[in-house]
């Protein structure tokens, strides 16, 4: 990990207004998240539904409007950028979406979809240039270049996801934010797409924010992991360290729950039901306290902040570890 941070997210707050039973309430999807991405690094953002990881990704891409906080790319504030600046930034940070069936316009050819970023931002010299680059990109994601003339419904889920990746690398960006890129795919196809992403990262020198709820996949691809719960990062650090010695009680619970293909780990019986609280519940103190075996009085009053913990640059937000 080099010293220069390619992307710095500082104290991001993104909330949504939701109308429930006649009243409009604010849901804090991202509640003060800061993270950094170094050049060439893969940062895994992991958490369950409602934790805000997708919203973090979308806020960085400016698809969701943060209420406060900064996102700095090579020292430039992304959220404040306009005009040519914004265009350059848009080309440099790209997103791969989760649903291969919904992320491609069914009425546009594969080639048109892949070339879209270039078309919008006038990155092609002429139509021959465009055609060559589209075909080269398709080949680099393991697809036959002749597929450029086809339509999405002619392709399988795995192929469509590759098209989505192709779209995200033409022209080559610096950062890719992958929002659950393999969650909608079969296991054998997941493996192929994961391999592809790793390969492209090598070849193109990409940095990545890999968002997923699947700890197995995240553990495999990430250099560092950040665990999110209810809009906040509760633990972050090097992947190996976190997987081997999870510190935060939630991280431990998450790891314990991940299904491993090992029959000796069979679940013995039922345990009391414990679920994340509703997103509307305004909580004081630690969001995990209601489910936490280590919870103390202090946990219910005072929100734990991320602090350095242990030797290996680990950040942890817990009073009791």
């Amino acid at each position, binding site marked *: 990990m080099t010293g220069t941070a390619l992307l710095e997210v500082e104290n991001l707050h993104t909330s949504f207004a939701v109308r429930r039973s006649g009243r409009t309430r604010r849901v804090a999807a991202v509640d003060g998240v800061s993270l950094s991405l170094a050049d060439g690094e893969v940062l895994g953002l992991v958490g369950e539904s409602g934790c805000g990881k997708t919203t973090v990704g979308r806020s960085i*891409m*400016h*698809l969701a409007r943060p209420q406060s906080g900064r996102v700095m790319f090579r020292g430039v504030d992304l959220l404040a950028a306009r005009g040519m600046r*914004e*265009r350059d930034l*848009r*080309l440099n940070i*790209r*997103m791969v*979406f989760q*649903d291969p*069936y*919904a*992320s*491609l*316009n*069914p*009425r*546009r050819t594969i080639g048109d*979809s892949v070339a*879209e*970023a270039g078309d*919008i*931002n006038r990155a092609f010299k002429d139509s021959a240039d465009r055609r060559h680059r589209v075909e080269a990109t398709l080949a680099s994601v*393991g*697809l*036959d270049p002749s*597929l450029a003339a*086809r*339509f999405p*419904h*002619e*392709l*399988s*889920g*795995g*192929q469509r996801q590759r098209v*989505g990746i192709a*779209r995200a690398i033409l022209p080559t960006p610096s950062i890719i934010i992958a929002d659950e890129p393999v969650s909608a795919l079969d296991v054998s*196809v997941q493996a*192929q797409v994961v391999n592809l992403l790793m390969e492209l990262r090598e070849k193109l020198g990409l940095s990545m924010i890999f968002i997923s709820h699947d700890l197995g996949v995240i553990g495999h691809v990430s250099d560092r992991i950040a665990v999110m719960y209810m809009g906040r990062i509760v633990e972050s650090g090097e992947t190996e360290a976190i997987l081997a010695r999870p510190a935060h009680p939630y991280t431990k619970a998450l790891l314990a729950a991940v299904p491993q293909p090992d029959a000796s780990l069979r679940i013995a019986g039922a345990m009391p039901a414990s679920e994340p609280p509703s997103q509307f519940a305004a909580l004081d103190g630690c969001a995990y306290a209601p489910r936490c075996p280590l919870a103390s009085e202090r946990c219910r009053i005072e929100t734990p902040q991320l602090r350095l913990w242990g030797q290996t640059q680990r950040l942890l937000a817990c009073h009791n570890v």
Partner: protein
Amino acid sequence: MTDVANHSDRRPGLIRLWIGPLLARPVALLGVAILLVVVLFAVAAPLIAPYDPSAYDALIRLSPPNPQHWFGTDQFGRDTLSRVIYSARMALLVGVGVVVFALVTGVPVGVFSALFPRLGQLLMRAIDVLMAFPSLLLALGLIVILGPSVANSIIAIGAGFLTTTARIVYGLALRLKMETYVEAARSMGSRTGWLVLKHVLPNLISPLLVQASFVFAFAQLGAASLDFLGVGAPPNIPSWGNMLAEARNFITRAPWLLFFPGMMIVLTAFALNLVGDALRDRLDPRLRSAFGAER
């Protein structure tokens, strides 16, 4: 490393895409056949009509259908069949005119309302007000303001359909706005114009095509109504509505004057509805099979 595509055949050509479902339902074929006849009438009227539609012959006035005049003659001795054939031109002109008007006005209203929610609320309320009027009353009202003529009757009838078109487009565009591929385009820096041109409009084509066939059908009825009331096409231009208006005075004496133009109106509207149904049925299963069965 490349995995094989699910579908080994190429995407069926545009023709096959639309003709296919029509062929699949024999009833729709009937509709297509009738429409082709109408189009033939309109296009080749001078060639197929046995007589000049305005040729008078007082000697044979009000003759019932006979070998010389298959559809009989009217009170001026004009050949009904020829008039029916020439009227097809009016029918097509008004039909196409109304569809174009409805699309040209309704689509932008719908799209802008969806993309700019605040403006959209206002526009949709205005549309609601327009929809409160029964379509014939609305058309009549507009004719009173604009004056009777073919062009104005197109506008008057079209206004009624601009509302439904705008509503449909609004709903569709709202949904399209949330599609992941639109998000993806936004994430790449696309502006509203690009989104509309490349993503919203192309996905509107199919539903609008279906809508167009129904609009065409009801435009026939609307035009016939206006003509019948005397505020549409001027009486010297043959149209089925005009023919009905003139036949009113001869219902008992010469029922054929009522029957043939009336039948043409009914058949044309019916045929368009059949075709519209078939096209609409094609849309739904396509969407479902394209998005559901492939998992």
